[in-house]
């Protein structure tokens, strides 16, 4: 690999280089690297400005949030705590769901439990018929 690279480099540093196709190639390489750097340098300079601009807006509303808080330590919750939290969130979201469904369908799905409805029933019990399923648009 590095041998091949060496050969290429040695061939590259020859007086023939700046002529014909290699000239084009070098031109492309220079333009290309300049463009790549220009693009990413542009971002490098604009992103801090963006941050400052947003922060200024934030400061007016909330002085405490702009501080550099550093990488937050990974919060290691006990499985028990996680279970409790996820159950609470689930309950909360189900409630939101219920509220949202009420608006659009005015009734929960009530499906007869005949045998030929098994497949349908399963999906309905399991489906997360959540806010994301509401009809917002086409």
């Amino acid at each position, binding site marked *: 690999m590095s041998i091949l690279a060496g050969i290429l480099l040695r061939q590259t*540093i*020859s*007086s023939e*280089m*700046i002529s014909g196709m290699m*000239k*084009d190639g*070098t*031109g*492309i390489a*220079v*333009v290309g690297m*300049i*463009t790549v750097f220009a693009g990413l340098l542009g971002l490098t300079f604009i992103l801090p400005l963006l941050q400052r601009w947003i922060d200024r807006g934030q400061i007016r509303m909330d002085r405490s949030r702009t501080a550099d808080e550093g990488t937050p330590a990974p919060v290691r919750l006990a499985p028990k705590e996680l279970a409790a939290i996820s159950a609470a969130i689930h309950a909360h979201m189900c409630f939101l769901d219920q509220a949202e469904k009420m*608006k*659009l*369908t*005015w*009734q929960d799905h*009530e*499906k*007869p439990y005949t045998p*030929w*409805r098994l*497949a*349908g*029933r*399963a*999906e*309905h019990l399991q*489906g997360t018929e959540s806010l994301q*399923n*509401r*009809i*917002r*648009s*086409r």
Partner: protein
Amino acid sequence: MSMSSSMVTWLTGFLQGDSGSLNLMSYLDDTGFGQVEPGNIVMILIGLVMIYLAIKKDYEPLLLVPIGFGIIAGNIPYNPELMPIGYQDILGGQQSVFGLFYFGVKSGLFPPLIFLGIGAMTDFSALLSNPKLLLLGAAAQIGIFLTLLGSLLLGFNLQEAAAIGIIGGADGPTAIFVASQISPHLLGAIAIAAYSYMGLVPVIQPPIMRLLTTDEERKRKMKPVRQVSQTEKILFPIIAFLITSFIAPGAITLLGMLFFGNLLKESGVTDRLAKDAQGSLNNIVVILLGFAVGTSTQAHYFLRWDSLKIFALGAVSFAIATAGGVLFAKFMNLFLRGDRKINPLIGAAGVSAVPDSARVVEVEGRKYDRKNHLLMHAMAPNIAGVIGSAIAAGVLLSIVPH
């Protein structure tokens, strides 16, 4: 040493632009900085506004974010002789990727797929519970036909006028479908107009609703809707499809997919299919459709006098449709007694824009009586509006020669 000095010579020439065809200056000419035109800037700003409205104001974000970003992507300047990028570019037989996306719009493929999704996510109970509210959805279609006449007066030909009229149906996919079939050259403007006004329903409708109703009417409470059996829900899409498509065969494609999706939802044995019809498939099509419509607003195709006219007609069209629904509700009340009388606000939901216009009705109704929930009642004309627009589209597709 001789290498490095000749390199310097060459680089100097290269940067100054005299080293042949390939140099930094000639490349700069082909970048956005060299190719930009005022129209591009205007369109990019429009795209930014749409994204702002979608994210900050929550106006139909599922449509306006893709369209807005598509407008930006479609208006970044480039040299079309070098690469196929824009939605109409073909270079050396290779079509641009944006062109491939746009095929789904131009061929009329995406709108029926969206209708499949809408069918699979819509509960038709409200409509089954109080069928006479269907007529409000019919009345609102007057917006389509008056706009058609208006378009003729403004100098559009019959095909164009028909496609523009459909904006008044307040139904993005229907408008795109009709335009793709009979006026493909106006497709971009019509699609943008239709979707923009769907996003602006909360702005356009309320003043008209207030203008045309009395305080007493706005406070009227309606009889609670009845429980609908599952058998009715299963039979409805089949029967409704047979009736409406026999009457307007031009709507077979749109209504077929709408009711097919609804049957998948209600049959109880195809939930697996319904889930993806209204989920993955719908989301994928929404992403591609919105983005493709956005990219089709390339300034030099889009920024014309005609586009402005279409936007003006679209606004009028929405206003007329809203008025049509409200006034027809008042007309129906002449024949209805006691608690069967309709709150005319729900007539405004006769335009489609599901479920945004129904929500506008709910919000408006509660301004006058905080305990008056009109949303479920408004869902009936709202869905009827979708069906009505599709029928109107069907009529136009069969009558207007193309």
